[in-house]
């Protein structure tokens, strides 16, 4: 199942084949199965001269700022805007790599790409690229890679917890404890229930793996469902199968990236297809779900509950009704925030993709610029 790597007519040896829907582990790095560093064999054929579009005080980037970089790689400067990099010493060195983690990097990134046409490769520390999405970026010729797979297993754990939270009726347990009330009530099992995964990418795959161990039925939804199979997915739908997936699922996990196609995907109409016992869990991006319609459904009891780690506006404004709804499990976009997760992501750049770049090897975690994720 080798991924094909072909060389375009351009001078860069690193064009990747467009195969972004492949679950091939040679292309996507995944911490559960991530292999030890095999990228350090072969001769070094070029240097990596790196600009870091980051907050210089970001401790998670320590390995990049202060640590030892692999042979052939050099960090030129850390900055947050074009002005920071406007020095002849930098210009003369023809930087060819940009590492991005700054939250306000969208415009500066495009400016940097214009200023430094020598840049071939942009790597972002996060999995989501929506924060830097722009025509300027997506229409450029640079190769874009990200941190897909870094956070999947942690989010999968959260997904199962959110399902169990409602299945065992944790809100009721907490209330009964407060009331010193020993009242036995029946609980639901996840075993035999159906989990529908909207956006069956790496997070979806990791969640499906756990869900199958629990004995759940797993349905998936992908942009390109043709010929897609996964050992942990019982049935996969294309985009036109969304309503059916919603109707069949007891638990719905939204783990899609935010793109023009997915914005507002879960609309009022979509939600109306759900079972009244359905639970919606969102670990993708807030804007994928029509938040007003979701709130309405929760208030009216048209769905049983929701577990939301992402929201349309973050931090969640105090006026939002979500704070007060009893059937909502809210978390401040931290369900993948382990103590080390961002550091691990930076380390992935340093010890996995950088050595590959300097040796002219295939980079892991390519982003499909035309698809936006």
């Amino acid at each position: 199942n080798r991924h094909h790597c072909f060389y375009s007519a351009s001078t860069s040896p690193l064009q990747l084949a467009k195969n972004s829907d492949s679950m091939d582990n040679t292309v996507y790095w995944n911490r559960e199965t991530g292999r030890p560093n095999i990228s350090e064999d072969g001769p070094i054929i070029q240097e990596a001269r790196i600009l870091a579009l980051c907050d210089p005080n970001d401790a998670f980037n320590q390995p990049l700022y202060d640590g030892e970089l692999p042979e052939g790689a050099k960090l030129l400067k850390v900055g947050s805007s074009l002005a920071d990099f406007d020095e002849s010493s930098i210009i003369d060195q023809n930087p060819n790599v940009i590492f991005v983690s700054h939250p306000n990097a969208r415009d500066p990134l495009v400016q940097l790409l214009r200023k430094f046409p020598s840049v071939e490769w942009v790597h972002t520390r996060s999995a989501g690229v929506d924060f830097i999405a722009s025509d300027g970026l997506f229409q450029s010729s640079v190769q874009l890679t990200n941190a897909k797979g870094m956070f999947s297993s942690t989010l999968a754990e959260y997904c199962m917890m959110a399902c169990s939270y409602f299945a065992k009726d944790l809100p009721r347990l907490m209330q009964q404890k407060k009331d010193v009330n020993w009242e036995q009530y029946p609980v639901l099992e996840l075993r035999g229930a159906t989990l529908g995964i909207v956006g069956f990418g790496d997070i979806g795959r990791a969640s499906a793996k756990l869900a199958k161990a629990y004995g759940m039925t797993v349905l998936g939804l992908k942009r390109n469902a043709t010929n897609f199979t996964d050992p942990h997915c019982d049935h996969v739908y294309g985009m036109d199968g969304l309503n059916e997936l919603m109707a069949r699922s007891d638990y719905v996990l939204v783990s899609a990236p935010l793109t023009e196609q997915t914005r507002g995907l879960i609309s009022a109409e979509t939600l109306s297809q759900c079972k009244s016992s359905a639970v919606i869990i969102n670990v993708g991006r807030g804007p994928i779900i029509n938040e007003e319609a979701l709130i309405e459904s929760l208030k009216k009891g048209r769905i049983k509950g929701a577990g939301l780690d992402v929201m349309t506006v973050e931090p969640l404004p105090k006026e939002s009704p979500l704070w007060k709804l009893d059937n909502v499990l809210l978390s401040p976009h931290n369900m993948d925030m382990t103590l080390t997760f961002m550091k691990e992501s930076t380390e992935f750049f340093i010890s996995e993709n950088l050595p590959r770049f300097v040796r002219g090897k295939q980079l892991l975690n390519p982003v499909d610029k035309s698809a936006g994720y």
Partner: protein
Amino acid sequence: MAALPSSSRSLGCFIRGGTQCRRGFAGAARSYIGCSSAPSTSESSSMRTREQHSQQRPRQSSSIANIHRRYYHRSSAPSKKSWDPSLDEYKYWNREESKHGEASYVLDMSPESIQREARILCLADERDDADGPLTDRSTSKLPFGSRLLHVGTTPDDFPDSLVGENPNVLFVSPSCPHARLQLPLILHKFPTLEWIHVRSAGIDFLESDELPRVTKRGIVMTNAKGQFSSSLAEYAMMACSYFAKDVPRLLKQKGAKVWDDFDIEELRGKTMGIVGYGDIGRATAKLASVYGMRVVALRRNPDKSELDMVCDEVYGTGKLSLQKLMSISDYVVCSAPSTVETRGMVDADAFRASKKNQVFINLGRGPVVDEEALVSSLKDGTLRGAALDVFATEPLPADHELWDIENVLISPHNMDKTATFMHEATEFFVNENLPRFILGDTLLNPVDATRGY
């Protein structure tokens, strides 16, 4: 007393009267427990392959019965090569993996394969509708060759005339009040009883000085082991995540409308210690291993888990083993039954050995844990938190300290109580073990009355 094969390798392995009892138990009940005739214990017999095991069973004269028995036991062999007790359907019935009512099909197809009748007495509160699949005459469908004679809660409820009908099967429901007193009296009144099936998994509610008489009389006892395991495994993982993702903090922040993105923990890479590695322990281990946790287990017979694929390390029983397990586990799941040996097993010494920030989960039986020591450990910060579904006294008294301790998740012994679980437990008796009894086949879920589980 034969020592168990690799007892020398395990820490503090118990090899006391258990072995002897098993031999006697197997000897008396040989005709339908199907243990090998050699005194090698049922443990080592289960080390053999499924095919070898079936060959050991006694043959009946009827050739039709032979054919059906071979068909019936020609189950699809599991793909796992290692011996996994949960797959050994000759011993333990497990809802996820066992096939339903094969024996009933055989009985339906060829009634002449019946070896004996089942004349059933039911020790239960007649208002308990969970016993419905057996007791509700309007809906119950008992297998051919079986009859329910009477339902009652004391010996006096059962008319003396029944003695002459030679009842041979007793179904015991936890709904029967003072069952531990009634059981020996029923046994005394009806000397023809051969088999007792207990509807629940725990048999501690039947514990008394008289109970070992069951074994002495050669009465076979079976229970509902395996019925509740997957629900409890789900609860165990939820309890771990509850602390790893700090759900209490999430709820507090929500109540205060505070958006504070704090660091959370993963379960992946952490160690789970399972005290009492039975069916529930194994179901939990199976989930924990898929999460990427390291699993260590403690059980009376560690050699039985040598080849277990979801468990990384197994210890035998004993204070030192328990303390070792406590010292290396981030999450401890206590799923041991309550017996004379396990009472108060998890004591102050065990908690003193706890790994820093440990979470303790009890879903077995309250008395296995020294509740006072547990409360102290929660209050003084020895434990990060606890999730308890069982308690020494249930319902938990309203004035008990546990209600007020913040880092405790309390549930009213309901984490396995799905809407249908007790019905399913009775159905297991009606559709699985009862047909097996009638066909003269191995009964599932044998229990050692003397050992207490």
